């Protein structure tokens, strides 16, 4: 069974600084997707960024980028120029490429932005 681990329950960063959230996962499959989801205090979960395992290039979305290390089964999220609106719970998630479409989530990291 696949597992996802986020070892940082809480993180904080000064506004405008850069922060990196860690995620490791375990799977025996070679093709899969990895995601970072954001859940602001209003609770609507939204997708931040997605990485296909077969792509070597790290995904980027504006101020958000990932460091995908397939051999190490590591998938960290870097947030540059942190803004107050980035404060949220962040979840790392895994999904198989084919078959059942369920997401396997990590425990979450609560990110606080200090003004």
């Amino acid at each position, binding site marked *: 069974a696949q597992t996802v681990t986020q070892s940082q329950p809480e993180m904080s960063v000064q506004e405008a600084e850069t922060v990196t959230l860690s995620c490791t996962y375990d799977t025996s499959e070679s093709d899969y997707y990895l995601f970072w989801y954001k859940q602001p205090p209003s609770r609507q979960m939204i997708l931040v960024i997605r990485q296909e395992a077969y792509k070597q290039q790290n995904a980027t979305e504006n101020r958000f980028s990932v460091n995908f290390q397939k051999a190490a089964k590591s998938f960290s999220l870097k947030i540059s120029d942190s803004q107050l609106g980035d404060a949220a719970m962040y979840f790392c998630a895994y999904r198989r490429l084919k078959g059942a479409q369920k997401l396997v989530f*990590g425990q979450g990291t609560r990110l606080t932005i200090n003004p």
Partner: protein
Amino acid sequence: DVKVTQSSRYLVKRTGEKVFLECVQDMDHENMFWYRQDPGLGLRLIYFSYDVKMKEKGDIPEGYSVSREKKERFSLILESASTNQTSMYLCASSFKFHEQYFGPGTRLTVT
């Protein structure tokens, strides 16, 4: 924009009551999911459905059942609510192999 709505944001029920949580999506998605969110555990899949009247057990189906009579609606049923089912419940939907879109969540308290 994709919209996933859930019938209640907050719900308080008594032990032993039958509880219905409803989820509706407006984008004709085939797949729908029910997750439970607990602090320190992340989200865990309860049930999912990939078509009308079809359902599959997730990782923690015990104590729950689901119903999908129409494509846009996926209901989670707690046959006899217990205090250990106090949690946040999140519904999601997706089109085939595309990303999942989440509803706002229902905070259920069972007393």
